[in-house]
């Protein structure tokens, strides 16, 4: 598209600016090429963006059997993203900008290398009719004195094909700044501006697309790695003289199968949420080793941690149901192992029949 626009700019500008055999170029043709045409095409471009219905030029263009497989894939993507109109606008502005740049290039080259004689001809209009129109065109560059049209210049450059003048060639060159300003203000600058806006709009629209938003969300939420923990070892044997602390309030009958435990009343302690104040005080004042029986499925709480800080011994995480004791679930056991790994004076005890 850019190449096409540039080629068109080169050819048209060269054609118009070359003039006739005397180098005479009709000013009105130039105004058509550098003012009216850019304004009209710009309006068409902007209007094509408005309204969803009607002929979609982008779709018509894409449907032409001109494109390679790669280009067709690109078009399909823009259609999926509902960006084909924006894409066409972007492309057309790039092409129009290339057209303007090529026209300017030709203009400079011809100004440098040849004598362009700007004239105007009209059967119906005279200089006084044309001046207000040219003044209106020149409004945007009011500060640029030498690029302003004047009645004197208009009268001096009015031409007829029947006359061969050329007495004062410099006078005929007097319009070049006006033409340059016309190109800059009605072709190059608006196109450059619309191209930037169209590009920003294209990027914005593309970012607003569902898939783009989802991709951004995926990046915003990286997968968090799982943590690893230090686990305390599990022992299966107990020292012979050890007190039993029934922290979880399990029925003693359930513990009978565990023959390693000395369940005589004088060997029992009770502490924890179910203990009376006296039982708690008695357990806290115990200085020997003890086996604290806890519910395997309940996580260790701060209350237990507070109690264990002042003693030493073993923890027995127990699991049971109506049928009796059963081995604790590995996840529950690991939770207790993790807990005990922070307490150097405590270990996990699990009888072999529950291992």
């Amino acid at each position, binding site marked *: 598209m850019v190449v096409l626009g540039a080629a068109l700019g080169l050819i048209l500008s060269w054609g118009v600016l070359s003039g006739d055999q005397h180098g005479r170029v009709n000013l009105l043709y130039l105004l058509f090429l550098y003012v009216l045409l850019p304004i009209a095409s710009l309006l068409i471009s902007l209007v094509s963006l408005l309204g969803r219905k009607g002929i979609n030029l982008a779709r018509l263009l894409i449907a032409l059997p001109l494109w390679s*497989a790669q280009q067709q*894939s690109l078009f*399909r993507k823009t*259609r*999926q993203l509902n960006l084909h109109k924006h894409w066409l606008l972007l492309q057309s502005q790039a092409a129009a900008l290339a057209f303007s740049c090529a026209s300017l290039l030709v203009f400079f080259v011809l100004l440098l290398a040849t004598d362009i004689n700007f004239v105007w001809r009209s059967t119906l209009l005279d200089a006084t009719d044309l001046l207000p129109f040219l003044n209106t065109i020149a409004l945007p560059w009011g500060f640029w004195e030498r690029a302003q049209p004047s009645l004197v210049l208009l009268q001096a450059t009015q031409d007829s094909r029947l006359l061969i003048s050329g007495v004062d060639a410099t006078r005929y060159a007097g319009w070049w700044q006006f033409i340059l300003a016309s190109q800059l203000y009605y072709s190059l600058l608006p196109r450059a501006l619309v191209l930037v806006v169209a590009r920003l709009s294209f990027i914005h629209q593309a970012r607003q697309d*569902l*898939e783009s938003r*989802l*991709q951004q*969300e*995926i990046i915003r*939420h*990286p*997968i*968090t790695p799982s*943590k690893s*923990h230090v686990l305390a070892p599990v022992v299966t044997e107990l020292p012979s003289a050890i007190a039993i602390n029934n922290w*979880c*309030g399990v029925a003693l009958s359930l513990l009978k199968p565990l023959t390693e435990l000395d369940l005589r009343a004088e060997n029992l302690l009770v502490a*924890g*949420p*179910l203990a009376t104040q006296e039982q708690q005080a008695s357990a806290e004042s115990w200085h020997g080793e003890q086996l604290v029986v806890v*519910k395997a*499925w*309940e*996580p*260790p*709480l*701060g*209350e237990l*941690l*507070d109690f264990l800080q002042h003693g030493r011994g073993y923890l027995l995480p127990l699991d049971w149901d109506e049928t009796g004791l059963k081995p604790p679930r590995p*996840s529950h056991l*690991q*939770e207790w192992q*993790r*807990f005990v790994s922070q307490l150097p004076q405590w270990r996990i005890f699990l009888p072999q029949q529950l291992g």
Partner: protein
Amino acid sequence: MADIFTATTGITLEKVIFAVVGHPNKGKSSIVSTLSQDDSINISGDSGTTKKATCYQVKTARSGYELVDTPGFQRPTKVMAWLNQHAPTANLRAQAVSAFVADPQCQQQFPDEVELLTPLIKGAAILYVVDGSRPYGAEYEAEMEILRWTGRPSMALINPIESEQYVAEWERALTQYFKIVRVFNPMTADFTRQIELLQAFTYLTPNWAGTLNTLSEDLQQQRITQKANSAMILSRLVEDLCFHRESQKVLNQQQAKIIQPALEKKYKSWMQARENQAIRELFANYQHFQIKIDLSQLDFPPDLFDLDKWYAWGLTKQQLVSAAALAGAAAGVTLDIALAGHSLMLGAIGGGLAGFGSAWFGADRLAQLKLHGLPLGGYEACFGPIKNRNFPYVVIGRFIHLSRQISERNHANRGQLSLAATDFQQKVISLEKSTQKALHQACDKLIKQQTVDDLQTILLPLL
């Protein structure tokens, strides 16, 4: 706490905050994750992972609420003892709880309880969570009593983590402390159940009804939008897969044969990567970000190119033949109309027969290598697109099955997906005849590399 906010519609709604409290490791974070549809919330089997109360804002188009994930009770017996000392009568209990939270010594000694009680004294409602798969224990009474002292509207949720064995036992205990008791499994509770849970609070706090009702409507609308988004992801996926081809310039036929395996490999890996991308987007559409996706690990046809499994995911051979005949006949009808009936319906009959034949004889055909001459000399070797009529149905079948699984998956569930081919063919049959016809015509166009304008709309009823 300022209890009102103005919704985008200009309606003033009451600010709703729920604090999820309970023993450690009873599924509080799972419940927050499921209700807030946020799978970034850390759910861990390690107790005490939640150290600070964290507020999660659930925002919808017009409403919203806050969910506070709190640390579990650590020293409830000692806290209860402190409260008993500071509130001799019932009318002073709520004040005692506030005093407890404000007390610097308590903040040091009981940081977990201070964290979990702070949102409650600021106006949050209570969602108390217990494990229904384990027996009730008297040690829970201290924490339930503390919660009762706050005087806040409350609901107990029995989370059957492993089973429902002790749910009845828990219900008997919890009804003594909480006005509403519900069984709620954050891993399996469907969307309706989640809405019901929020709605239940309108009975406890009637001034929250406006917010919660608007929220329910918004969440339901959000589901509809998510479904439409899934249809868009699918429409783009199926179009991309049906159109894709890999090509490379070659000098002659021999060279084309040499590069064929590499071209085929490139083609297949692109197709698989594209499908993988769509699946990731599908997860993201339903706000699942923490699931590791490895298609080869799923109980899901691991290979998009495994022809043997195609009939499980696409259409059966009979269905496929009918679909092709229907699509062919529809195209023929267009010709008949163009000829104002002068073709004596031969267009429709001929089109139908052509579709039938291509579906029957081309059903086992996959992508093939083709060689095209180039204008400036040499050749272009192309692999793809797949011409098999069942291919779009396979892509659609796999995707909608996955979509259903993901849309029903709760955010607390971080396990791997387990999927199996089931009822895509049934789903197609159950569609209205006009929708079926549109689907078959769309698939017929796609396999001919023609774009379908309203593909998303055609696919929506399947999801």
